[in-house]
């Protein structure tokens, strides 16, 4: 079977934006100095809040080591998904791009784990008639729903003007019931599992 796009533009992995390595080091360091972490002053007491005398905002007490999930972290979660027809990642194919990921409200150390956070990912299919756009979108949605906390609402859309049937694809990807049913389809589930194999 011919591929929809036999010669896609490919980006070099080393040129893709990522925070992966840095995060790994950071977490190793954090575990080494657990005691330090426990003993040191909460971050909210350092600048620019150090001039506020003991805040009565006790809720943020145990949140001070939690980093907010930002666009880069979302990108790192989905850029490693494999394209269903090329042996390349969605990041390499520029199907997912950091500027096309939007989080609202913008990332901050949210005190309330119940606060709804919307993650909007606009994907760019490699060509305008890519029949696999829905499958790719589904992969992105499934990956993020598995990886993100339950207060995140994931919306995956086709980037405007990059696909001939973007309204139809968008509506399918937004339909919870269709997504749930799709995941019970053995064939489709197999394709998705293969795409997500390369995610760590």
């Amino acid at each position, binding site marked *: 079977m011919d591929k929809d796009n036999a010669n896609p533009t490919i980006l070099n992995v080393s040129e893709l934006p990522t925070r992966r390595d840095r995060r790994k080091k950071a977490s190793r360091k954090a575990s080494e100095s657990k005691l330090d972490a426990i003993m040191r002053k909460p971050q909210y007491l350092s600048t620019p809040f150090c001039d506020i005398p003991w805040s009565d905002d006790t809720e943020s007490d145990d949140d001070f080591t939690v980093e907010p999930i930002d666009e880069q972290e979302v990108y790192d979660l989905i850029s490693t998904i494999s394209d269903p027809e090329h042996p390349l990642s969605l990041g390499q194919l520029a199907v997912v791009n950091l500027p096309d990921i939007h989080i*609202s*409200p913008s990332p901050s150390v949210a005190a*309330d*784990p*119940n*606060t*709804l*956070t*919307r993650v*909007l990912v606009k994907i760019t299919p490699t060509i305008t008639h890519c029949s696999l756009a829905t499958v790719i979108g589904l992969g992105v949605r499934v990956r993020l729903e598995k990886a993100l*906390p*339950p*207060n995140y*609402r994931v*919306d995956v859309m086709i980037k405007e003007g990059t696909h001939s049937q973007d309204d139809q694809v*968008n*509506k399918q990807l*937004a*339909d*919870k*019931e*269709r997504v*749930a*049913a799709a995941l*019970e389809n053995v064939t489709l589930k197999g394709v998705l599992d293969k795409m997500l194999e390369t995610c760590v």
Partner: protein
Amino acid sequence: MPPPEVGVEEDPSTTTTTTTATTPTSKLHALPVFKPDLYERAWQSIPHPTLPLLATAHQKSVTVFSLATLTSHSSLANGHERSVRSTTWKPNLPPHKLCLVTGSFDSTAGLWRWDDTGAGGDADSDSDGLGLEVEVTASDKARDDDKDWELIVVLDGHDSEIKSVAFSPSGQYLATCSRDKSVWIWEDVGAAEADDDWETVAVLNEHEGDVKAVAWCPETTATARGRYGTDVLASASYDNTVRVWREDGDGEWVCVAVLEGHEGTVWGLQWEPISRDGRFPRLMTWSADCTVRIWSLQEEDEEEEEQEAPRHAWGGIGSGIPSTMRRSLKEEWECTATLPKVHTRDIYSAAWSASTGRVASTGSDGTIILYEETGDESTTADTHADDEIAAAELDGDVPMTNGHPEKTKKKKGPLKRTWKVISNTPNGHGPYEINHVVWCKRYDTGCPPEKRGIEEMLVTTGDDGIVRPWEVMKEETEQSS
């Protein structure tokens, strides 16, 4: 598509949030959740029409809960290869006989029966409808959970996932609908109740997208025009429309109206449980466009009907109407209210109370909103102007500009009422989406005995596998946390 902004819930410590212009006057008080937790997405919980039982669809099975003990009563498993999305109780059966239909993503519907006459032997103690419950509660522990539900019939025919199943009020008909864009109506033509000789009486193919839900109009004393059969079905679709179906007297089911207005998938619909003022029951629909709408049948006086006879009946309704549909069967439905828009994402479910007329809605934003209808015939200046236009149109020449049914207002138009939000409960299931909300009677021990079977509660069903009852309470003067 939902609007781009996600609602930022307020701090949960302040439960008296006022995100709308209207100050809430009620609040929801969470009651102990049904046990056990299901620990997986649950889609829907349907109360039995008369008995204190609640059927919750989750994954490939249904768990039936007791509304008296708020614990599991029985379960229906191993009947479907994929998730059960929807379930409906067959009405009008004798106590000790239960019948449940399950609609599944495996594209089949299962009909299950529970016959308890041999087990309890106390069939005479259930004149109040509670016999089953008493008996079940007493012997709950001893019973093998799956023992008494039997899958009797598999209704096969849909090409893809069944999204919704519903019995007609008499139990004569069963409607199913699917992603295959069709609605099927089934009838048990067997001589006796348990014969289960089910036949397809209609396959309705007019929707242009998945049919998400079906609902039968409750039996009504309203004087629906005589030329129809008594059963009325409505369907909601991914094509953003709602259709109303009737049997034409010759056994043919036809689409009598297409309700257009929603700007996204219509996730569901419910008929007004008790119609008011002798009018035909209204229809409530809810959608991915974050609105809940109320539609009313334009009931015409006899003389008006004659006057309208020469109109081009099909002008404004759209291209989806088949030419086989006769003019005499057409109905005009008008959107007569849009409830205050509070939800920020898809509304997956809403429920209209038979006893208070209140509406509850919920969905992807995890918020539960309670609304109340206020005022009778609206007397605002605007409406007067409308009435005058309507009156003018009815006078004399009546051009009846064909193709615009919404402009042809009639003197006896539907009641114009307004709805206000009376409570707003964010994070009903914490951070999770809520898939379903329903009103049901209370039988639990937290309810005073004299109010059991009378007082209502809300039950919500969520992605977290929790089935949670809520008591509606009057808002005390000021909530301090």
